[in-house]
């Protein structure tokens, strides 16, 4: 494994990443507060939670569009390309490392290099999150912001409820992703090294 430092996280990416992280937290807490609003106790006052959730959602959309364009027009997109041939095999190899190899101090099967920032499991999860779940949560979020665009009734159920169900389920999966993502960031040279990298840009 090369010991030389790699500059993997350009400034735009770091700003986008931390903005995204902050917005995620705001959206998770306000979203939970709305979903489990109660008369006796509420995490954040309902009307404040609605406003914060709406504002954070709109900024997240702008941030997402920025990411898609920045990724499209910089070399960063190369890290997200999945080569289908042998991908399952590579996934299993990484899975084996996380569930067994890491405990017996095996070297990581896909070490970080200038050409490879993500291991196969990271690549798959990031592609799913950024190019599938983010569009779903953004589209359903806007449909809830402008409820008149929803179908009034779908097989006897209010269309807006189905939209919300999709929004909430996707939000839950993204929240779980965030927790797992934070845990996997402790897999650097030291527990904190990956977190530092996302501030300095150097891996």
């Amino acid at each position, binding site marked *: 494994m090369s010991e030389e430092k790699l500059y993997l996280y350009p400034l735009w990416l770091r700003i986008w990443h931390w903005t995204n992280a902050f917005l995620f937290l705001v959206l998770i807490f306000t979203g939970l507060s709305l979903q489990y609003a*109660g008369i006796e106790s509420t995490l954040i006052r*309902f*009307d404040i939670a*609605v406003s914060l959730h709406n504002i954070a959602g709109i900024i997240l959309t702008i941030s997402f569009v920025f990411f898609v364009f920045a990724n499209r027009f910089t070399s960063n997109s190369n890290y997200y390309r999945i080569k289908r041939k042998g991908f399952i095999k590579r996934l299993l190899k990484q899975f084996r490392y996380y569930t067994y190899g890491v405990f017996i101090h095996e070297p990581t099967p896909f070490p970080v290099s200038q050409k490879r920032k993500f291991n196969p499991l990271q690549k798959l999860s990031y592609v799913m999150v950024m190019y599938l779940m983010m569009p779903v949560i953004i589209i359903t979020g806007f449909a809830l912001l402008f409820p*008149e665009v929803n179908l009034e009734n779908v097989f*006897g159920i*209010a269309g807006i409820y189905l939209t919300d169900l999709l929004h909430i*389920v996707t939000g*839950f999966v993204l929240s779980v992703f965030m927790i797992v993502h934070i845990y996997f960031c402790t897999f650097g040279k030291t527990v904190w090294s990956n977190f530092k990298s996302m501030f300095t840009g150097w891996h």
Partner: protein
Amino acid sequence: MIANKYLLLISFLVCSYGIVAYAQDEGEEERVYDYAGENHQCIKCHGHKTFHYYNENLDREFRDRMNPYFIIDSVEYYSSNHWNFSCFDCHSYDYSNFPHPAELRLEPKPGCLDCHGGDDTYEDRSWERIDEEFQKSVHSTKHSEDFTCSMCHNPHSYKINARTNDNIKQTIQYDNGICLSCHADINKYQLIVDFVNPNVLETHAWLPNQALHWQNVRCIECHAEIKEDMLIAHNIQPKEKAVKRCVECHSENSILLASLYKYQVKENRNKLGFFNAAILNNSYIIGANRNYYLNLISLVIFGMVVIVIGIHATIRFIRK
């Protein structure tokens, strides 16, 4: 051959539709309008914008305009709750003379309780309780006795909606229309007060998604005191007491279940696990509609993720 098959299929569908349509018609009881003939005496003039009369002094027929406030829409009347009433049940028989005797204008009009009070037929509707609640409301305490039931419930057109109409949106529109008939119409509003009615759009400017709220809840949801023993709340509260906390509706124990959805609510959670499922057929309220099983599954998944991470981190720490 194929054409024949299609012909057979189309014939079958047409017949099926005919049977279903017939069955539906059969289900509706045909109304016999006992007083339609008698009422025609009144409706022939009061059902139109203009009326004719013969002036004996001038020996000629005249056409005149009907006072717009005295026009009765016969279609509305015959589909209202009072559809099978004679006009003379409530109005003096002397009105059958024309020109109507001037002193009839001073004749006291009957109130709802004059007929419905102590009526065992409508015991479940507890008219006396409604009156009790109404007497406590701002409509009664802030105004003179001129504010009667008919200010809101026009006896010539009013029909019960909440209990008989499955389409909640129609009920909402109908019931809100009653409030707006005064609160958005200065002419009717000033029948009992001298000042200009406040603009409801401005007084409700604080309400997020204003139009959406007004399409999905009735004014009385926030402006009337809800009581379990009342079918429909009639105690309209002073504006300071109106519901303003979002969570009163946007929570599991939404007050809407005791008011707007009172007739749809059978139980808090139905077999598919939806809390307040009655609302879901028509609308969706953040905070009030949750699914028990989805809640449970999400908690289990979240718990498992935390446990697996905990175990993984512990083993990593031990094997360091």
